[in-house]
């Protein structure tokens, strides 16, 4: 073993993920910066997970509870008539990125989220039907991490995702106007989750 894991029992991690150079993909990182500016309660750690890929597995596994803030892409009609799947695009790519280790088949929303909206779902309850042959190190997104943890029988904490449904990404260090407007909503949703207390995974 290369040293003992830090175990943060009783603590919660708020993890913002995404690429700050890819516009709205950096939503999670911008959101945790805003949270830090405003302050967080005792017992809560905040991390900029950037495009940490498989590193995030070790980071998240050390906590009892994790709230991930990420940008989501909406993929139309893949799960049920009129339904949609949410693709966590934390390791954003160009063409073909949607299925690359992404969170395909996320919990169905009661209605289709619209671009600009913030949605919340429990990652642990998401089923990943197929092994993902495209899993790489950059592409090891939240879905890839959950798949890997399940294959290895590793215990993951309860992971809630606060996702911003984006209309698209662009190469820029700035968020789109719509994403900037949604930041406060994402922060509010994170604080609401914290107030609910620690759920079971």
């Amino acid at each position: 073993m290369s040293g003992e894991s830090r175990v943060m029992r009783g603590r919660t991690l708020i993890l913002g993920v995404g690429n700050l150079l890819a516009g709205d993909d950096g939503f999670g990182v911008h959101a945790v910066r805003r949270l830090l500016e405003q302050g967080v309660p005792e017992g809560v750690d905040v991390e900029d997970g950037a495009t940490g890929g498989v590193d995030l597995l070790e980071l998240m596994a050390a906590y009892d509870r994790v709230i991930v803030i990420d940008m989501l892409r909406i993929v139309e009609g893949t799960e049920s008539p009129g339904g949609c799947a949410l693709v966590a695009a934390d390791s954003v790519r160009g063409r073909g990125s949607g299925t690359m280790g992404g969170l395909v088949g996320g919990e169905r929303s009661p209605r289709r989220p619209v671009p600009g909206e913030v949605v919340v779902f429990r990652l642990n309850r998401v089923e990943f039907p197929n092994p993902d042959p495209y899993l790489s190190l950059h592409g090891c997104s939240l879905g890839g991490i959950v798949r890997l943890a399940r294959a290895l029988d590793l215990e993951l904490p309860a992971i809630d995702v606060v996702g911003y449904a984006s209309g698209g990404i662009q190469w820029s260090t700035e968020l789109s106007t719509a994403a900037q407007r949604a930041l406060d909503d994402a922060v509010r949703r994170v604080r609401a989750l914290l107030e609910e207390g620690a759920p079971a995974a």
Partner: protein
Amino acid sequence: MKGYEINVHHITRVEGHGNIVVNVKDGKIEDLRLEIVESPRFFEAMLEGRKWDEAAAITARICGICALGHTCASIQASEAALGIVPDEETTLLRKFLLHGETIQSHILHLYFLVAPDFFNAPSVIPLAGSHPEVVKRALRLKKLGNEMCEILVGRKIHPIGMLPGGFARWPLLEDLKRAREILISAKPDLEATVELFKGIAMPDLDRPTEYIALKARGEYAFLYGDIASSMGDVTPPATYLDRIQERVAPHSTAKHVKAKAESYAVGALARFNINYSSLRPWAKGVADALGLKPLVTKPFHNNTAQLIEVLHCYEDALAILDDLLLRKGYVHRMKEPTKYGRGVGATEVPRGILFHDYTLDSEGRILQANCIIPTGQNLANIEADMHKQVELMAGAQPAEIQKKLEMLVRAYDPCISCATHFLEVQFV
């Protein structure tokens, strides 16, 4: 078989999105392409207009795997442009951190992307189910690299403490001792890794190739050095554009790069070929036991060279820590700019030489930036190897040829996502 077509849409287990197209008619290759189809990235444009002290933090975000390598190349370019010469201790700590990144990148490439081919698994996920001990070992070794970074510069994912002129925080003696203990404890996992991969026979493709890597006196160069070619010449980094030429390939959103030969290779095997005599003892012993000695022109042995480099980086990291631990009276001071000009940084990141080139204006803002990523340098060479592989397999079934070609691309450990930023506006 006289005629066949291979169309691999989206090669699996590589970083990013590339396709393979092969068309053979009457036994002749009519078309063979490694298509790079990802959207372009405009990192240079994001740097232009920024102050010099913003560049390292921005470029660290280019790549989740090579964040430290980009930071090192960026800092080196900035320091050259600013007239800063880092002190010896700063250079040692940078080398140490870069070793951590090389170890974790090579380990994950070997275990996550290469090993499934030899275990007949489509990806690391089923491999984790069938051979959990192997995947858990890979994750432990990955963690080793993270911890080396976290203990010494205080952050796992992006190294914010590394700056032009020095470090925002210099590690305490206790930090250095802790890093040493963690490294020592990882040795059994590294020994098991050697046992696992030395039992894997690499395919035998062999093709004369120009190899290019950094070379520095008395060491296996990673952090800095001159640009050395297996064809014999050595060029200072500042004149890199005289030595390599970028060119357009119509089927690729990344530019191809040539040197003396029509294509050349960078990465672990190139470094091994250029720097073999400076390998640390364990690494050299394993190379010798595997019968690997320069000049190795078998591209699948890039995987083997990565294994050897993991051991070298491990041994060298320990030696650096021992050296730093002896310098108890050292007090770290940031160095300040003495000019604003042009500077080039050349650093060996896991996949090969990474160039950063900045020109600053009179107020220290970046007027012009250029980054050349290793995978872009390898693309033309990968295609040349694919040609040879297809010719060698005349008569084989297309499915067999396809599998071998995918393994060949994978052996280069390409980072296609990063390479695509070469694109110029006219391609869009």
